[in-house]
């Protein structure tokens, strides 16, 4: 009975260690290939289009409603203390420091991260990745590096967009619907946000870009090595699910760790 538990724990731990090792090597190899010529400018631009440009609408939509909800909730909380004038500060700092980078990353994970895992997973299952290997093309360079670079460039820009639209959403609900003075709202936004807050938010979005892209591409790349022993369509579906779940969890964990250093 006890040996069974020990065996199960050992097996789980060795699987975890092997997976962590593979993930680390995958990441290092992908980063190394960023600096190896010839540079894959065309492919990076294609992925910026897919990860960045095609995510703009969903970022605008979520940013706007997040800001509007913050405006509503913030107003009814602050009004009980008679400090509703601080709504601009509350909305802008919450968005720029936390919600912009985190929700932006989670939305891009849902839209582009899942697609990355599925696309690479299908390539694995249909032997396209093996074909790259036999053609002496580094598969990690081919499938991961351009996506990583594109995400590093796209995530901060999407975060900035999320922040701006969110502040606008807070203005719509706080000033236009609930009657806070527009000049006061905007004045609080302008004077309470420091450059350190903006840079902190960008740093978070940079880290989230690396985390999300690495996990999603890794899950697709190794979709044939899953603990359930699934193959084919089932393996791709497992890879996609675990890519999204693990990316979101890691984004939240990283957010806490970075915030604890930045505060």
């Amino acid at each position, binding site marked *: 009975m006890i040996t069974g538990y020990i065996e199960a724990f050992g097996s789980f731990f060795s699987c975890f260690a092997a997976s962590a090792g593979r993930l680390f090597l995958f990441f290092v190899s992908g980063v190394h290939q960023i600096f190896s010529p010839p540079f894959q400018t065309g492919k990076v631009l294609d992925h910026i289009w897919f990860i960045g440009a095609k995510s703009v609408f969903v970022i605008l939509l979520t940013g706007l409603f997040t800001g509007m909800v913050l405006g509503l909730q913030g107003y009814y909380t602050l009004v009980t203390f008679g400090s509703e004038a601080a709504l601009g500060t509350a909305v802008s700092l919450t968005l720029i420091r936390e919600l912009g980078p985190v929700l932006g990353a989670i939305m891009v994970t849902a839209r582009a991260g899942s697609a990355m895992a599925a696309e690479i997973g299908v*390539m694995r299952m249909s032997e396209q990745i093996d*074909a790259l290997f*036999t*053609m*002496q093309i580094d598969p990690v360079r081919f499938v991961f590096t351009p996506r990583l670079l594109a995400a590093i460039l796209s995530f901060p820009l999407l975060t900035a967009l999320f922040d701006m639209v969110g502040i606008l959403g807070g203005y719509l609900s706080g000033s236009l619907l609930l009657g806070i003075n527009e000049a006061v709202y905007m004045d609080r936004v302008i004077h309470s946000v420091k450059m350190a807050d903006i840079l902190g938010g960008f740093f978070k979005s940079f880290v989230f870009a690396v985390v999300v892209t690495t996990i999603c591409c890794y899950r697709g790349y190794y979709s044939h090595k899953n603990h359930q022993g699934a193959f084919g369509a089932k393996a791709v579906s497992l890879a996609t699910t675990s890519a999204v779940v693990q990316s979101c969890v890691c984004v939240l964990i990283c957010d806490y760790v970075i915030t604890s250093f930045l505060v």
Partner: protein
Amino acid sequence: MTPPFIQFKNIKKQFGTLKVLKGVNLSITKGQVTVVIGKSGTGKSVLLKHIVGLIHQDSGQLMIQGEPLDRLSKEKACRFKNKTSYMFQDNALFDFLTVYDNIALPLKETAQIADPVLQQKVHARMKQLGIEGIDHKYPSELSGGMRKRAALARALVTDPEVILFDEPTTGLDPIRKNDVHTMIKAYQKQFGFTAVIVSHDIPHIFDLAQHIALLDDGIIIFEGAKQDLLCSDIPGVQAFIQGKNSMGHE
């Protein structure tokens, strides 16, 4: 005596508890067409994948011109792999790239070639294989035979010295099968590459074969010329050729 170009020496491979290769010994001569036959699931593709490094043996040695592949210098191993092409059973064409981009990919990614030269090489291969004019089509828009030819064009575009064919005629009708065999035969004659073909397309594949190996239950039970195979008295050989199930336990 010159060592064989590629030689399997007591290669063993198992996946989990399943022993696939149980000590394979096989010699492949340069410039010849070697055909590996055997029942489905006996490890023919696994055997082939060892040559390109997609699978590594648990024990035994894979020799390239007398030197173990895993002990070749990085430069020599790279040169060997650069000269080797692999044609997958299901073609493994990139479904998000057009036919032209699929064929051009190995040259685009590994060689610094000017665009006009690249176009010329790709179009020359497409013309040779009778698939000109479909540059902008995607693999999903092609018939099975066209896909096979596109995959063969991609395998040939780098002017390889060794081409490994993993069941090149699977899923094709008899006419297309014959076309693919004729094509491989003609190009092997024209370009002189070493071909290793995994197939169970018997007896048609014998027309191509200069050397035949029969894999059964993880070992090579026959290796030699077509004539020797046809009159071999090794247990199971004749039954396999005639399609009778007396070999192994399947």
